């Protein structure tokens, strides 16, 4: 009798710990995996190749979500961009990720170049053309310590135990590498990375050159729509996906 009771308690404890473990090690489920195509071309070559080269790689359509309103003072935003297409190739020791999404508004400008001479030595300064415009942007986020064993970090820019790397591209300001350990901790590292972007017929195609990430790494994507005044956490995001 006592042994049966002990067995029941033991199995209940086991079941409970299994559930907790499963919860903690929550992994994206089937349907959230991304296939990676290995190519012999160099990363440089692939980065700058036109859409025809990329079209040969099957795209995975990833659903986008809007972040909930973050501030009472912000106008609500609608889901104008519902998904993005992801193509991934491994080439020349790099991982190339192409994100394509439809966006009827091309929110990007070419800012005036700042002369090399210090402003105090120049009569004419570069002017602020507009103070109220925001630009299209996209980002790929993955754990700073990638690998299949790693637990997926918090989707909100990672967490203290699971820092993330964010490869951020802005249609006006270019590519910048960021790091974060939770919401509000994102910082620019001052480093950049190779990126190639085109906007044609209402569609962005942006190719990121990332370090080669091992199979099983979780990656997430974000898109900012300038015309919707997107910046900061006001954006579109995907849930974690797994590299095959």
């Amino acid at each position, binding site marked *: 009798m006592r042994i049966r009771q002990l067995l029941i308690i033991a199995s209940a404890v086991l079941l409970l710990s299994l559930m907790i473990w499963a919860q903690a090690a929550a992994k994206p489920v089937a349907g959230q995996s991304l296939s990676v195509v290995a190519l012999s071309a160099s990363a440089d070559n692939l980065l700058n190749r036109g859409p025809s080269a990329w079209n040969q790689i099957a795209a995975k359509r990833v659903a986008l979500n809007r972040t909930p309103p973050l501030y009472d*003072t912000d106008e609500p935003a609608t889901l104008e961009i519902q998904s993005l297409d992801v193509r991934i190739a491994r080439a020349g020791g790099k991982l190339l990720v192409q994100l394509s999404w439809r966006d009827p508004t091309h929110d990007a400008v070419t800012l005036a170049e700042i002369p090399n001479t210090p402003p105090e030595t120049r009569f004419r300064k570069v002017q602020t053309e507009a103070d109220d415009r925001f630009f299209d942007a996209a980002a790929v986020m993955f754990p700073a310590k990638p690998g299949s064993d790693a637990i997926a970090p918090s989707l909100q820019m990672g967490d203290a135990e699971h820092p993330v790397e964010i490869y951020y591209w802005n249609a006006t300001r270019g590519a910048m590498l960021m790091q974060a350990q939770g919401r509000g901790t994102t910082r620019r590292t001052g480093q950049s990375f190779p990126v190639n972007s085109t906007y044609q017929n209402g569609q962005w195609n942006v190719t990121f050159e990332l370090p080669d990430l091992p199979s099983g790494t979780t990656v997430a994507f974000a898109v900012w729509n300038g015309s919707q005044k997107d910046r900061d956490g006001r954006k579109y995001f995907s849930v974690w996906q797994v590299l095959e």
Partner: protein
Amino acid sequence: MSRHQYAMVMDLNKCLGCQTCTIACKKLWTDRDGTGYMYWNNVETRPGLGYPRQWDRIGGGWKDGSLQPSPLPTMDDYGHAWEYNYEQRLYEGKKQPVMPSPEPKSGCNWDEDVGGMNEDENYFFYVPRICNHCTHPACLEACPRKAIYKREEDGIVVIDQDRCQGYRYCIKACPYKKIYFNEVTGKSEKCIFCYPRLEKGQVNACAAQCPGRLRFVGLLDDPESPVHKLVLVHKIALPLFSEKGTQPNVFYVPPFNPPKRENYGKSIQEDPRVPLDYLIYLFGPEVKDVIVRLEAELKKTQEGGRSEALQLLIGRDAETRFHVRPQLVQIQL
């Protein structure tokens, strides 16, 4: 709460709208790329549009403990920078007069001296504006990057240019629209109350250069400082739009013009040159009490007495007007 609070009092009766403060500030702080339209200090004619235009009606600030919404002012509200076609006139022999381009449609103090009408008479006065270095800053609350902070030692509100990402929530939140976005650097900027000068015992550039001697600077909590005396002892200076809830630390002595007609022995309130409603709009209902106090001080001197408040407002020398005390606010590390 910061341990000390630098504050400024501006006596609007003495402002002549010369913009020397504006230029002093511009030459010192905003003569860089992307800062052309920035006036950390500006002087605007009241009643009037202000800079950016209609900033006082656009929104922001606090209500019932919550930040209030506001759109971002646009470049149309600030006015686009223009250039003159001198080359065409001087070197290319074109007969047209020198013209600005693009056509100027707005700018800093665009409606200079237009003012308003009080029955059949025109009236106006100038309001110099800097960041109010509020005790309860809406900009600080709005910044998700925590790039804005209020200095513990002296209450000056500054934007950390390393942390700022140019999201512009602060510009929306500021009810005084005293933060400007620099598109060249991609970051927002504002008046820094000349803290590098204060730290060396020098008063703010705008105050130092003011030919009207209308600015008073010191610690609000220093009983010796002129701002403490004007705001807390004599109670003759008020902040702009206190109902916005940010508790500004820039205060104004309201315009105290004599009555319009037959002013001898009459009260300003009987026949005001500047309509009281407009002063109440800017400074709240308390402005009436301030005018009563100022009138009483004036009466005292007219009867041969001495008014400490009015003597202070004359502000004969820098020592009277400025009490910059870096040693008082220094944090021992």
